[in-house]
Structures are given as structure tokens and as C-alpha cells.
């Protein structure tokens, strides 16, 4: 998949995952790579940015083995950001679909 596409929607992907459950970094990576290939390292700077922007808070939870896991929770601000971004994405993809259709190509599926 086009890397520029991914760059644009990674924020949305992470927000959507955290909207459902609290997750730790590796879990988020896994849930994304189930659907598409990304550079896994890019998730961690993004999470730091989310934390600075107050979209998420974090807490540590001991794991059976190894160092404690850092879980992220979406804040009210984060939920708002998610809602807005999701709406933008919906509008955007609808416009693109219509544009492509109007030029005579049917999207498959």
C-alpha cells in the first residue's frame, strides 16, 4: 500500500483502536499489522505525541515476565479528535470514490 496513504491515516488507526480498549504499544502495533504493513517503530513516537497533545493518558501494569507494560487510555479530548478525524476520513473517501466513479471506473468490492 502507498506509504503516503498510511502516513495520513495512522493517527486515525491508533485512535480507533484505543477508542475500543486500553492497549499497550505492542498490542496497538499488532492490531494494525493484522490489516496492513507498517514500520512498527513509527507507533511509539506517535504515542508520545498523543500523550503530549493530551489525547491519551498512560499507566503501567506489571506483566508476568519482563518489564511492565505501558497502557494508553483515550481522554475526552482524544475521543473528540477521533470523532472529527473519522468524519473527515469518511467525507474524504466518499469524495474520492465519487471522483473515480465519475471518471468511469467502478471500485471493486
Amino acid at each position, binding site marked *: *500500500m502507498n*506509504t503516503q496513504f*498510511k*502516513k495520513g491515516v*495512522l493517527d486515525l488507526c491508533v485512535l480507533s483502536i484505543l477508542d475500543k480498549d486500553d492497549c*499497550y*504499544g*505492542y498490542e496497538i*502495533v499488532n492490531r494494525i499489522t493484522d490489516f496492513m*504493513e*507498517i*514500520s*512498527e*517503530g*513509527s507507533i*511509539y*513516537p*506517535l504515542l*508520545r*505525541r498523543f500523550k*503530549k497533545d493530551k489525547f491519551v493518558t498512560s499507566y503501567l501494569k506489571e*506483566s508476568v*515476565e*519482563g*518489564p*511492565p*507494560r*505501558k497502557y494508553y487510555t483515550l481522554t475526552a479530548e482524544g475521543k473528540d479528535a477521533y470523532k472529527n478525524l473519522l468524519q473527515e476520513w469518511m467525507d474524504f473517501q466518499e469524495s474520492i470514490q465519487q471522483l473515480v466513479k465519475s471518471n468511469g471506473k467502478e471500485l471493486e468490492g
Partner: protein
Amino acid sequence: MNKNQYIEILEKKLSKLPHDERLDFINEIQVHFNESSKQGKTDTQIVESLGSAKHLARNILLEYDIDQLAKEKKILGYGTIGLKILLIGFKNLLVFPLAIGIFATVLALYVSLFAFYLSGALLIASPLIHMIAPSLVSTGPLPLWSMSLIGMGLILLTKKGHDYMNVGSTKLFRLFLKSLKHDNMVISS
């Protein structure tokens, strides 16, 4: 490269971060390694999907640098600002052309300000210059003293422009920081 080497590079590159933040981040990457290897991945495979330690550290530091810079509330000296923009630009080649452009524009504006001040000063001094070297000054139809007056007006106007430019370039700089913040996520597949 194995896990320990990877972590070691991160530690070294991130030495600038506050101790707690660095520990916190490295801990997170350690969890990533542990869990990945539980899924049967080798260190080499994990490093490959994480991306290089240098690249990861650079992304973290860029974010950190911008935040630190944005925290400096007082208006910085413009030389420092230019230097810092250049430094950040070097760290992220994507924005380098933009940084050069902004820096060059601001620099050019200040150079032309200097030229205005200089011509104002020369106009004020023109009666004096006329006394020393009359051939250098041609007044045309206007009396000599009016040149000094025009010079003073020019300097006052330039000072006004200078003030606007200080405010403008500070705003431009903040805008640049903001755009940098939105554009520094780089994902390579």
C-alpha cells in the same frame, strides 16, 4: 544487530531526554522486543520491522526539540532562531528546503532594512558630505537641508517597518514550528 545493541544505540542517542522519559521509552521498546520474540521472531526480524534505532531516536528527538523550542516563550534573537531552524532542518531532510527558504527570506528582509537605515543616515549627513566633497552630493531643485529632513523621515519609516518585521518573523517562525510538528511522522514500509 541484537536487542541489546539496539537498546544501547537508543540509550546513547536519547541521552538528551530527561532521565525518566528515556527510561520510560526504552522500557516500552523492551516490551516490544520481549513480546515479539515470544511470537517466535528473531532479533533481526524484530529490528527490521521496527526500523533502525537511529531513525527511531531521530523521530523521538525531533518531537522533543520542537517542544523545547516552543517552550521558550521569550522572543529569541534572530540569529539563534535561524540557526535552530537550520539545525532542525538538518535533522529532517523533508523540511530542510522549507527551512532554508524561510531563513533566507527573513535574512534578505533584514539586509534590506539595513540598506534603508544606511541611506537614511547618508541623507541626514548630506549637508556635511556636501561641505567636504561637494561633487558627491547633487541636490537638484531642493535645498540641501531638506535632504536631512527626508533622511530623518526615511529612518522613522524604516524603524516602523523594522518593528512590523520583528513581529512578523516571530509569527512566521511559530507557524513553521507548528507545521513541523504535523509533518514529522515518517513511515517507511
